[in-house]
């Protein structure tokens, strides 16, 4: 394929990745509570970062293996660390009792620590028990 065609495809991929970042920003503004807001930038930003990296390599006309390696390293780092850091942040928020949206289903996680331990001991939580078949 010609060089201009590759640049055009790269620009389109970059635009798609930038739109994923816009989805992350709109999700931060629109979703009802912290625990749903946390998932929007995590998913959208990792996929958007991948699209932007591939698109920028194609857009600026290759440049050899070093450019691919640098951008792949950066994308790999972001895709590894972004879920971990958001998980740590949300766990801290759950320990401090940040309120959940009223429509949340499942076991409560924003209770005080003793309450969650009591729920786990009494076995009335919704998590799978070891004797659960399947």
């Amino acid at each position: 394929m010609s060089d201009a065609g590759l640049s055009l495809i790269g620009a389109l991929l970059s635009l798609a990745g930038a739109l994923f970042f816009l989805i992350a920003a709109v999700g931060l503004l629109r979703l009802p509570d912290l625990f749903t807001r946390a998932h929007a930038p995590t998913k959208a930003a990792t996929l958007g970062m991948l699209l932007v990296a591939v698109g920028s390599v194609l857009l600026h006309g290759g440049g050899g293996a070093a450019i691919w390696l640098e951008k792949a390293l950066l994308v790999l780092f972001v895709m590894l660390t972004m879920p971990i850091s958001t998980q740590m942040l949300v766990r801290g928020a759950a320990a401090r009792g940040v309120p959940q949206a009223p429509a949340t289903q499942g076991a409560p996680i924003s209770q005080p620590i003793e309450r969650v331990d009591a729920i786990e001991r009494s076995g009335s939580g919704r998590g799978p028990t070891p004797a659960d078949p399947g």
Partner: protein
Amino acid sequence: MTAALYALSLAVLALSALLILVHAWRGSSVFDRALALETLSLVVVATLLLSADLPIDAALGLALFAFVTTVLLGYFLGQGKFPRE
């Protein structure tokens, strides 16, 4: 065409950075502000990725700084306690 698409993607990144800053300003809790600032630094990393000659040191350093900052904020703002530990 290609240059216009490139400028449009930079403009979309700038718009999303602006929306994230609005959320960090309005934020309902300090965890919200931390999440918004982490997302903002990732938007800046994506903008650095789009530039013609990538400053790999700046981009990797910013991504690393966002990771460490968010993990430490989550740990210490949660007073070092996690619900299931």
